[in-house]
């Protein structure tokens, strides 16, 4: 069973993540945790100093964390972006596409199911922050914008 899943090279960040409030209020902390409903854009002035952002999913159906992740990546955040909480195997692909590169689910995931899920879709329709080439770019290799 998988308790922690990472797609990053090297060691995962170990420093405990602090709340957004205490992070922006002080600090020399380099790890922060965003709760659903908190504005990821509050972190944008500090991206250089961050090495870990945890985004909490209180319930798998609460999709605010997907927007939070994409906003951080769109702003150029390069550090570890970790999904924590009610993270299920069936959400991994969408989370990867929104820029998450590590996962600490409340309940451990089945290795084989993770493997199957990650390899199931060879093609995607949207351009996001994961660098995958959308179908429309493959159809028009000479004429892609952006």
């Amino acid at each position, binding site marked *: 069973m998988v308790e922690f899943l990472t797609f990053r090279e090297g060691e995962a960040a170990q420093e405990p993540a602090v709340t957004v409030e205490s992070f922006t209020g002080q600090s020399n902390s380099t790890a922060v945790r965003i709760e659903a409903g908190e504005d990821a854009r509050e972190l944008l002035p500090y991206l250089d100093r961050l090495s870990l952002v945890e985004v909490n999913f209180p319930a798998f159906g609460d999709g605010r964390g997907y927007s939070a992740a994409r906003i951080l990546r769109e702003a150029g955040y390069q550090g570890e972006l970790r999904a924590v909480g009610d993270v299920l195997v*069936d959400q991994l692909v*969408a989370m990867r596409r929104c820029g998450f590169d590590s996962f600490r689910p409340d309940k451990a995931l089945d290795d084989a199911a993770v493997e199957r899920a990650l390899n*199931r879709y060879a093609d995607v*329709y949207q351009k*996001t922050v994961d660098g995958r080439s959308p179908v*429309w770019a493959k159809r028009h290799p000479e004429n892609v914008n952006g």
Partner: protein
Amino acid sequence: MYRYDSYDQSIVDARVEEFRDQVQRRLAGQLTEDQFKPLRLMNGLYLQLHAYMLRVAIPYGTLNARQMRKLGEIARKYDKGYGHFTTRTNLQYNWIKLADAPDILAELATVEMHAIQTSGNCIRNISSDQYAGVAADEVADPRPWAELLRQWSTFHPEFTYLPRKFKICVIASEEDRAAMRLHDIGLKLVQRDGRIGAEVYAGGGMGRTPMVGPLIKDFVPEDEIVSYLEACLRVYNRYGRRDNKFKARIKILVHELGVEEYKRQVEEEFAHMRTLGLNPPTEELDRIRPYFANPAYEQGLSDEIDRSDPAFALWVDRQVAAHKQPGYAIVNISLKPRGGIPGDASAEQIELVADLAERYSIDELRVTHAQNLVLPHVKKADLYAIWQKLDEAGLAEANLDLIGDIIACPGLDYCSLANARSIPLAQKLSDRFGSPERQKELGELKLKISGCINACGHHHAGHIGILGVDRKGVENFQLLLGGSGAQDASLGQITGPGFSEDGVVDAIEKVTNVYLAEREEGERFLDTYRRLGMKPFKEAIYG
């Protein structure tokens, strides 16, 4: 019409295998029903009162004969021989076994169909105008954009767990045949300085808090529609309410923020989004567009119709609409036989319509939000032959937009959310009012029934609407007057205290009598209501 390439096909095939895996895990007991529920819902599979219901997507309501035939075959093989066309222009099977669902999806995939995102809190099937491509008043066929948006919205990673479901409609005519402004987002294609773009309406919808969507942007160029929608959806995903399911639709966010503030936030997000290269290149729209090009119409055909058979002439006057091409017509097929179940079709009827589409309509047909079917490209010379075949199959009812053309949700006969039965009421109403003479006398009168507050039967948008509620364990029907889903969109008002099933039929009789007594030359029921207001109708009902 659009055909999949190898990318589209591989995505749909992968979804079938993913769902097969999920169903196997459920059947093997590795997933509990609680864990399985969100997975099956993402694929249009609901657990209803008696069985599973599978909702198949019919993107923008367009399909070909091969696809229609497959729908009939599935009805026969896996259901009790019926399919039910819905107000979302989809098709539902009400008697599905869980173990069969993966095989059904595999069969659908062989004809380029699927059930992706026909439920769940995600972007649903994109809807459009049933006369797209054949209406004389459109600025362009809206379906290439609808197909572009189908692809964009399929497994969109950021917008798969929205606060609530999300419905998008694309039209391109002044006349709104698709209830565009009652969608979460409505796009109306317009032309400006020789360029195509979209007017964007946001925050329309029905349900327990109906709203007509306000205009939030008067022109988004066609090659920026995707990034503009990403901005609309991102604001909604971040700030839409998640504390109360009944306040979670975008209409509540737009209402609570105010239109101007929602617009401001979308504009801010859009300014950012348009820097990210999210829009497919214009070459992609150019790739899709030819699939919807005009078919090879025959030239120089006669516009004459032999009207010597009076029953046929009656049907022509009601069911046949003007086509942009001389010699051709648009045929509306009513799925509202007198005393029947609105939107239901037997496997045999589905297959017959497939045959007619193949032989007489350049292999194309449409589904309408009013739960009827359309043959879009029919030679006027073929109308009589088509009518005869429809008549034999019980499909030649002449009641388009008349009181017998009732929209009704499945109601308590099938749906686990319903409070009241819609179907028996629809049957009683069509028995009472459905004679050809009476329907003709009453003229255009859109009657819509929902069996609960979720409003799948569009009761808010009915000239006459009926809402079934549960009153202390007894079915009770509220009556609404004055709604419209067309370009003059408006929401119906409740007349007053509700009625029993028979009581509401009697009340409608009184309401229509007021109309017949008070109408002025050329007025529809809706026009008379708008002129007179609620008072005389209310007096007639409760006085």
